């Protein structure tokens, strides 16, 4: 195991400008009864991926509230991560034939890692399936163990889930990003949303000069409507479907489409999807397909801010935090009603939901025809994110969870 020292510290007070002084006072009040209490977060990666990104922000904020928090990351060889990746996909519903050896490898690395930690914190939070068997090392006593599952368990592979459930059911509670992702369990289950950081490079305010530079760099015309989908080149994000929707809209509005995502060069499937997207674009000069290096957070931020409408036409989705990112920037969003998206898009209040290519096109046309409604959806969307999907709200939820466990509520 390796203890991670979180980087990019942003003082809690800085968030007062965004969420208000009252919210920060409230965090301090909730943390007061927990001052000095020990918390341990355990996951399987220190960099890359949403969990590491959130813990990198959350841990320093918790420290600032005088909580004794540490973050440990599992160590594992390729064979372990091969197994956990297969488990991950199988839990998402992909076909998978688990072999006894896979379970042995999984348990063996859990055992090795567990042996290096005392696991005596008062509150232990285990993230995702990789370290789930750490519960075997739970010392007798009154400390609290909770399992935070960041993945969609609505249609899991039976064999993998049956194996994991034996461990999960021994926790004091489990947290899921959406009720849809949860299972019928004997332990209490809680709703815990992922969160965005309003002060990170991906979400912080930008000056208009920089936004214009980014548009200029990619030859995007700021004078005409810009439709944008930010997502990796993955069939489940349906980039080709977005192009089909754009073509319908284009009959009525002289608009542009931006499809921006991470580089597909090191992902064989991503490269294949990118080819399909380029083919579907048919050299239309108003379709900009951008491969951004390591997601270039400031550029993503600029593209979202420059957009007239942000689209997220996924066929399946985890939580889909790009929706919250766009809402935070007060952008009207048209998105598919899948995964965690309906939690973020309350239809006709914080955005518009769609269920097909034609539906997506219709909602985009509606918003382009009614900019005042689009603006209102964006305003409401911003408030919705402020109330529910910011890192400060996530911290508040953790504090409430620890207090609840402590008080046996």
């Amino acid at each position: 195991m390796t203890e991670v020292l979180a980087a990019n510290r942003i003082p809690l007070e800085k968030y007062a400008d965004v969420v208000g002084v009252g919210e920060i006072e409230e965090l301090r009040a909730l943390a007061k009864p927990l001052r000095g209490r020990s918390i341990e977060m355990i996951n399987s990666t220190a960099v890359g991926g949403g969990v590491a990104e959130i813990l990198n922000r959350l841990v320093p904020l918790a420290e600032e509230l005088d909580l004794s928090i540490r973050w440990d990351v599992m160590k594992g060889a390729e064979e372990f991560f091969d197994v956990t990746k297969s488990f991950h996909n199988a839990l998402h519903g992909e076909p998978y034939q688990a072999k006894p050896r896979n379970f042995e490898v999984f348990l063996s690395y859990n055992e090795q890692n567990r042996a290096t930690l005392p696991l005596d914190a008062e509150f232990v939070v285990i993230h995702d399936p990789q370290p789930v068997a750490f519960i075997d090392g739970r010392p007798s006593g009154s400390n609290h163990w909770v399992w935070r599952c960041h993945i969609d368990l609505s249609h899991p592979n039976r064999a993998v889930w049956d194996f994991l459930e034996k461990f999960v059911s021994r926790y004091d509670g489990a947290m899921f990003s959406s009720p849809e992702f949860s299972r019928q369990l004997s332990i209490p289950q809680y709703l815990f949303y992922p969160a965005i950081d309003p002060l990170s490079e991906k979400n912080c305010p930008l000056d208009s000069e920089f936004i214009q530079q980014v548009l200029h760099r990619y030859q995007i015309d700021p004078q005409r409507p810009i439709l944008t989908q930010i997502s990796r080149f993955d069939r489940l994000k349906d980039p080709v479907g977005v192009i089909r929707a754009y073509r319908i809209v284009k009959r009525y509005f002289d608009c542009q489409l931006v499809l921006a995502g991470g580089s597909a060069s090191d992902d064989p499937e991503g490269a294949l999807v990118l080819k399909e997207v380029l083919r579907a674009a048919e050299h239309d000069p108003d379709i900009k397909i951008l491969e951004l290096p390591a997601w270039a957070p400031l550029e993503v931020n600029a593209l979202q801010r420059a957009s007239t409408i942000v689209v997220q036409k996924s066929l399946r989705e985890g939580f889909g935090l790009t929706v919250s990112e766009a809402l935070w920037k007060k952008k009207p969003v048209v998105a598919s009603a899948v995964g965690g998206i309906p939690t973020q898009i309350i239809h006709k209040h914080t955005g518009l939901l769609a269920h097909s290519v034609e539906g997506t096109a219709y909602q985009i046309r509606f918003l382009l025809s009614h900019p005042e409604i689009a603006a209102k959806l964006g305003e409401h969307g911003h408030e919705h994110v402020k109330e529910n999907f910011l890192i400060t709200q996530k911290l508040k939820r953790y504090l409430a969870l620890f207090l609840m466990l402590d008080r046996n509520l």
Partner: protein
Amino acid sequence: MNVAETPFDFVTASYLTRIGNQSAGTLAELLTGLEHCSDASIFHHTFQTLGTHHFLTEGFSNDFAQWTLSSTNRSDLAEQLAALDIRDYTSIAALRSDLCRVVRDFCEAQPQFASQSGLERFYFCESVEVTVPLGRSACNLDEFRDGLEHLSHASFYFHFISSRLRLQLQTNDFSHWLSASLGLRTLADSINHIDVYTSTLDSARAKTLRLIDRERRKV
């Protein structure tokens, strides 16, 4: 200026959402869920929802109405569910009874829609309330105003909206204290009449502060 014998203690509340094991895909299943879910679940989808979606002032009042509209497209039923005003209820049992009556009447009158599948399922959840004192109290109107001005949304919601069930009176913590401890009945009534459906929490607080300021000018 009146001084209260019992100070007003500002508290904040944080709510965790506990996911239940019930869900509904049709209006008939929604009715079954409404009949059998916990009180905490009714609270979560009506009172608590008003707090988390406080910035919406049009057409949104509770999760049941919103799901009926967005998933089953039954705007007539959604309208009736939305029309139930939580300020009229001092018990969850009474609110549950009316929610069930509205859905039952609709399903009986239009059985062809009762078993029609909605676009998304409705998941019954519960609220778990965790309260902590903010360490601030007020003994007179000036101190009260100062405390009120700096409250978070959650704290304001706790005192102004969810308190109605706790007190089991058709009033809120603020009005109750202003009336009982400072004898300011007219001010208390005016604050109690602020419409929580057509105001955001911020605008409700601003109206409350304006009413208090008007009262202070009388002194």
